[in-house]
C-alpha cells in the first residue's frame, strides 16, 4: 500500500512545493509538513509531501549494512 517516492524540493510557495523526481518536476501539496526547506528530500504520496527524508540517517543505515558480518 501507499506508493510513495523520494523527490527534491526545488521551490516553495504557500502550501505547494515544486519538487523534482529524477529530474521530473511536479507540484505537490505541503499541507502535511511544517518547516520544509528548499533542497530537502521528501516522500511524496498522492500529490502530498508526507515526510522529510533524513539524508544522514540514510547514510547511517547503509553504513550499518556495509559493516554487518555474521560468522558462519
Amino acid at each position, binding site marked *: 500500500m501507499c506508493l510513495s517516492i523520494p523527490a527534491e524540493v526545488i521551490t516553495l510557495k504557500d502550501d505547494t512545493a515544486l519538487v523534482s523526481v529524477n529530474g521530473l518536476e511536479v507540484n505537490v501539496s505541503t*499541507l502535511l509538513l511544517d518547516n520544509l526547506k528548499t533542497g530537502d528530500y521528501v516522500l511524496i504520496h498522492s500529490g502530498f509531501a508526507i515526510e522529510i527524508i533524513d539524508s544522514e540517517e540514510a547514510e547511517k543505515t547503509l553504513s550499518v549494512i556495509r559493516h554487518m558480518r555474521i560468522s558462519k
Partner: protein
Amino acid sequence: MGRFDAYHSKVLCDHLCEQIHRLAKRPLRLMEVCGGHTMAIRKHGIPSLLPDIISLLSGPGCPVCVTSPSFIDQAIYLAGQSNMIICTYGDLLRVKGSNGSLEMARTEGKNVRVIFSALEALEMARREPEKMIIFLGIGFETTAPATAAVIIQAKKHAIRNFFVLSAHKLMAPAMEAIVSNDIPINGYICPGHVSAITGTSIYKKIVEDFRIGCVVSGFEPLDLLQTIFMLVRQAETDRPALDIQYSRVVKPWGNQKAIALMEEAFETVDDWWRGLGILNASGLKPKASYHEFDAAEVFQIPANNISDPEGCICGEILKGLQLPVDCRLFGKSCTPENPEGACMVSSEGSCQTYYHYEHRR
C-alpha cells in the same frame, strides 16, 4: 541518477543475502501488510534470493482488497445520480461490487473520473460549482491525512459541493486481528509509509502482548533485505522487538501534523474487512463537525449485503493462511483480465502480484 540509488546496489544486496543465509537456521513465516511491499518483493525477485526456509506472506495491506464490495455499490449508486461526479484513485476503478465496477459504470455513461490526488477533486468542486463532487476516500494512514487536509480546506473555503465517501482504514487493528486469530507468523514487515505518519506506537501491543517482532521497512530492495535480516536475527535470538529499519523516513513519534489533521477531521468507527470481518475502531469517517462533507451522511444511499464469490479464498489469503495458488479459481476463472476476488483486482493484491511475477502459465 537518484540520490538513494545505493538502496538498489547489487553489491550490498548480495552482501545482505549472504548474511541472511548464514543467520537463518529455523523456518520462518514473515508477513508484510503493505501492497507496496508485496509489489516490491515480487518485482525485484526477492524470494528467489532468500533461503528456502523463509516464507514471505502477504497480509491485508492492500486497501482495495479489504474494502467491502458494498462500498463500490454505494459509489456506483452515487455515480448514477444526476449532477454527481465520482472522483477516485485509479486503484479502485476495476474493483467489482455486487453489480459491476466503477469502470463498467463509466462505460454506461456514469460520471467517474480518475484522479491522482484528493486536491484535484477539491479543485474540480471549485471549478464546477453546479456539480456535486464525491471523492472516494480509500487507503490507510498514509492516504487518510491527505483526505483530512482536503476536508478541512473545503470547510475553510466553504466549498459546499465537495463530499467524501470514506472507506479509510487503520492498519494496526488488522495486524492485531491476525495474530490474535492464532495465525502462525514469526514477524511483521511493517508498512513504512503508514508508519511515517503514525509512528511506531501502533505496533507496541503486537510486540509486547503477542511477542511478534515488528520491523518498519522501506521499499527499496536493500530496505526489505535488511528488514528480513533484522527479523531473522530477532527470531534466532528469540527476542521479538519493535525496530525501525526505515529510519531515514520513520520517526517513533510519526508525523505529528498529519496525525493532528486526521484527528481533526476523522473519528474511528467499527469497520468490515474482507477476510477479517468487523474489527473494532478500524475505520475512519468524518467527525460530526464535518458531517456536511460526509457523503454517507448527506445522501441517502441504499445498503446491501453481499458475500465473496463462491470458492474464493481471498479471506484466507489475506490472513496468510493460504497462497494464491491454493485457490481453485486462481488463474482459471479468476485472472487479472476477469477478477473474481479482490486480491486479483488490485495491481498490488497478493493474487495479481503473484500472477504477474511468479505464476507460470
